[in-house]
C-alpha cells in the first residue's frame, strides 16, 4: 500500500459497507445491506415464499421482516468480508465512512428507520407545499396544482418498470405542461412571477421526493454498475496529488485544509439529499468552498482555469457515494431550465466534466510518460509530493495541533502577564489612593467645633449680655452706620451656621471661622 494513501485515509472495517452476501460489491441500506444483484435474488426468493399480494411495494414488507436467510449465512459473509478486508485493505475516504457506516452497522433498526425517515421527509415537504399553496390565497389554483401532481405521481408509480428515458421524458413533459397550465389557465391569473416560480419549484421538489425511491438509481438501469465503476476508478487514482493536477491548492496555508474538508463534506452530502435542488445546493456549496480555498491559496479570486483542477482533486479525495446515480438523477429529472443556465447549472456542468475527466484519465491527461502512469496505477511507485512533509495524516494533524497549542500557550502567557499587571495596577492604585487621602487628611485636619447653643433672645435681656450689645438702634436715624450694623449681625450668624455644618469638610481656614463663632457665641 502506498504511503500517500495511508496519509490521507484511515483503515476501516469495510465489511460494514459491503454487500451482506459477501459478493464484493457495496451494499445499500435501502436493500437491507445487500447490493442490488443479491438483493434481487433474495427478494425473488422472498416473494416466492409469500403470496403475490404483499409484493407490490417491494421494500416495504421486506423491511419489516427479518431476513429469511439463516444466521450462518450472515456469519459466513462477515467472515468472508473480514478476509477480504485483510487481503485487499481497500480504503475509503474518512468522510464517506462516517456517513455510510452508521447506517450499516446498525443495520436492522436503521432499515426500519430509513423507511420512516423517508416518509417523514415526504411529510415535511408535503406540509411545506401545502403551506405554500395556502399562502397563495387561491384555493382553486392550489387544488388544481395538487390534483395535477397527485395524478402524475400515481401515473409514474404505476409504471415502475418502464425504461428510465420514458420516465425522464414524462417528468420533464410534466414540468412543461404544468408551467403552460399555470400560464394559460384563468384560475392561476394574478399570481406574481415569483409565486409561479416558487410553485414550480415546490412541485418539482415534492414530486421527486415522493418518487425518489422509484426514480433514483432505478433497477432498470446500469447506474449502480457505473457507481461502482467510478468508485473503483477513483480508488485506483488515489495517488494523484494537487501537483499532478496543477491545482493551486496550498494545503499548508491557513485554513485551506479545512476548506477542502468542507468541500469534501458538501459533495458527499449530496447523496443524502433527495430533491435535485438540494443536491445542486450541495454542489454549489462544495464549489464555493473550493473557490474560497483557492482564494486563500493564491491570494486572489480564482478563475475557471484553476477551479476545474481543484474540483477534480476534491472529487478524487471525496469519492462521493452514488456519484453517477446522483448525476443521472439530476440530469434526468431536474427541471432542465435549472441545468441549462444559472449558477447551480454551471457548477453541475463542472461536476459532470470532472466525472468524465476521471473516467478518461490517462497518462496524457496528467502529462506524464505512460510507464510512469502505469507504475503509479499498479502501486509500484508513489509520485513525489514536495509539499507533503508528513507521511501520515495523524502526524500532520498532531503537528498542526501542537502549533495551535503553542499559539494558545503564548496567548495564555500574554493573558497571564496582563492579569498580573492588572493586579499590580490595582494594588498600586489602592496605595496611591490611600496616600492621597492621607495627604488630604494631613492638609485639612478634622477640627471639631463646639456645638452652637441657641441664643434665647428673651433671656438675653435679663443677662449682662445685653449690656455688652450695642445700643438699640434708633428708628429715627437713617444713616450708613445704622443700616450696616444690623445686617452685620445677621450675616455673621448665617455664616457661622454654614460653617458649623461644614466643619468636617475641608474648610480652607478654620481659624477664621473660629473667630466668627467665638463672636457669635460669647459664652
Amino acid at each position, binding site marked *: 500500500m502506498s504511503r500517500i494513501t495511508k496519509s490521507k485515509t484511515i483503515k476501516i472495517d469495510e465489511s460494514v459497507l459491503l454487500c451482506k452476501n459477501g459478493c464484493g460489491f457495496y451494499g445499500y441500506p435501502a436493500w437491507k445491506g445487500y447490493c442490488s444483484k443479491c438483493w434481487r435474488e433474495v427478494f425473488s426468493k422472498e416473494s416466492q415464499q409469500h403470496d403475490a399480494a404483499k409484493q407490490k411495494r417491494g421494500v416495504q414488507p421486506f423491511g419489516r421482516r427479518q431476513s429469511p436467510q439463516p444466521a450462518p449465512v450472515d456469519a459466513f459473509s462477515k467472515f468472508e468480508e473480514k478476509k477480504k478486508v485483510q487481503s485487499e485493505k481497500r480504503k475509503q475516504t474518512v468522510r464517506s465512512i462516517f456517513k455510510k457506516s452508521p447506517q450499516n452497522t446498525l443495520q436492522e433498526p436503521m432499515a426500519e428507520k430509513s423507511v420512516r425517515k423517508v416518509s417523514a421527509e415526504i411529510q415535511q415537504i408535503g406540509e411545506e407545499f401545502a403551506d405554500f399553496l395556502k399562502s397563495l390565497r387561491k384555493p382553486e389554483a392550489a387544488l388544481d396544482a395538487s390534483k395535477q401532481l397527485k395524478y402524475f405521481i400515481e401515473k409514474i408509480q404505476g409504471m415502475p418498470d418502464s425504461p428510465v428515458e420514458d420516465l425522464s421524458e414524462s417528468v420533464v413533459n410534466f414540468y412543461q405542461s404544468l408551467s403552460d397550465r399555470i400560464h394559460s389557465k384563468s384560475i392561476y391569473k394574478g399570481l406574481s412571477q415569483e409565486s409561479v416560480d416558487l410553485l414550480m419549484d415546490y412541485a418539482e421538489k415534492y414530486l421527486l421526493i415522493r418518487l425518489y425511491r422509484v426514480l433514483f438509481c432505478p433497477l432498470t438501469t446500469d447506474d449502480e454498475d457505473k457507481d461502482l465503476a467510478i468508485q473503483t476508478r477513483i480508488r485506483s487514482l488515489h495517488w494523484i496529488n494537487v501537483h499532478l493536477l496543477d491545482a493551486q491548492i496550498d494545503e499548508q496555508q491557513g485554513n485551506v485544509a479545512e476548506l477542502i474538508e468542507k468541500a469534501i463534506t458538501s459533495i458527499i452530502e449530496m447523496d443524502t439529499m433527495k430533491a435535485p435542488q438540494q443536491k445542486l445546493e450541495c454542489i454549489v456549496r462544495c464549489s464555493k468552498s473550493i473557490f474560497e480555498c483557492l482564494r486563500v491559496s493564491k491570494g486572489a*479570486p480564482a478563475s475557471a482555469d484553476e477551479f476545474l483542477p481543484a474540483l477534480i482533486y476534491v472529487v478524487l479525495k471525496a469519492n462521493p457515494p452514488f456519484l453517477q446515480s446522483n448525476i443521472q438523477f439530476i440530469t434526468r429529472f431536474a427541471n432542465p431550465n435549472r441545468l441549462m443556465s444559472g449558477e*447551480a447549472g454551471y457548477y453541475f456542468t463542472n461536476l459532470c466534466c470532472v466525472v*468524465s475527466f476521471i473516467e478518461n484519465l490517462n497518462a496524457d491527461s496528467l502529462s506524464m510518460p505512460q510507464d510512469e502512469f502505469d507504475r503509479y496505477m499498479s502501486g509500484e511507485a508513489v509520485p513525489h509530493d514536495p509539499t507533503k512533509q508528513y507521511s501520515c495524516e495523524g502526524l500532520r494533524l498532531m503537528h498542526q495541533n501542537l502549533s495551535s497549542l503553542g499559539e494558545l500557550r503564548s496567548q495564555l502567557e500574554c493573558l497571564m502577564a496582563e492579569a498580573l499587571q492588572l493586579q499590580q495596577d490595582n494594588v498600586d492604585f489602592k496605595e496611591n489612593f490611600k496616600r492621597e487621602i492621607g495627604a488630604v487628611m494631613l492638609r485639612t485636619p478634622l477640627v471639631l467645633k463646639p456645638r452652637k447653643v441657641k441664643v434665647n433672645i428673651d433671656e438675653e435681656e435679663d443677662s449682662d449680655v445685653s449690656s455688652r450689645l450695642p445700643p438699640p438702634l434708633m428708628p429715627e436715624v437713617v444713616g450708613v452706620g445704622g443700616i450696616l450694623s444690623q445686617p452685620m449681625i445677621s450675616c455673621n450668624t448665617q455664616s457661622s451656621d454654614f460653617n458649623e455644618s461644614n466643619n468636617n469638610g475641608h474648610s480652607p481656614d478654620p481659624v477664621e471661622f473660629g473667630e466668627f463663632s467665638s463672636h457669635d457665641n460669647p459664652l
Partner: protein
Amino acid sequence: MMVGPDKVDLKVVLLGREYSGKTALAHRYLLQKFNPHMNYQTTVGAAYGARKFEVDKQTIFMGLWDTAGSERYECMSHVYYHGAWAALVCFELIDRESWLRARHWANEVMTRGDEGCKIYLIGTKADLVTEPGTPRKIEYATAKSYADDIRAKYIETSSKTGQNVEEMYCMIAEDYVADMAKKTKGEN
C-alpha cells in the same frame, strides 16, 4: 448586480486558451471594472456570473460561464457550450498561439455546439498592442476576415482600460433580444 441563480435567460460561454484574457473579461463582467493588481475583494471566484441588461424596455438576465482553457480538459468542453446562446472565443492580440487555438475553438463550437450558437471572436489585451515589447501579432483585417468567414462578430477589447468590454456585453444582450424577436416572429 448579481441575480438569483434560477433567473437567467441566456447562457454565454467564454472559450479560449489559458491566460487568454477570459478571466479578466469575466471579472469585468461581474464587477464592471478591472484591477491590474488582481485584488478583487468582493468576489470569491469569477467563473460564473449573471447580470441584468435592459434592452428596448426588456429586462434580460445573462449568465456568463467561464471555462477551463487548458488542453487537458478540451475533450469535455462541449459539455459547457451545450445550450449556450453564444460563445465568446477569446485570443490575445499579441500571441499567435492563442489565435490558432481560438480558431480551433470556433471550429469546435460550429461542429459540436448547439445549432444557431452565435460566435463572437474576441481579441483581448488590446492595450498591450500600443506598448513597446508586445507587438500585435494578429492584424485586424486577418481576424475580421476570419470572423466574416465563420459569420461571427469580431471585437477587440482591453479589460485593463475597459475598451469595448461593456459595449461587447451590451451588444450581445441586444443581439439576443433581436434574435428572440425574430424567432417569435418566425413562429407566428
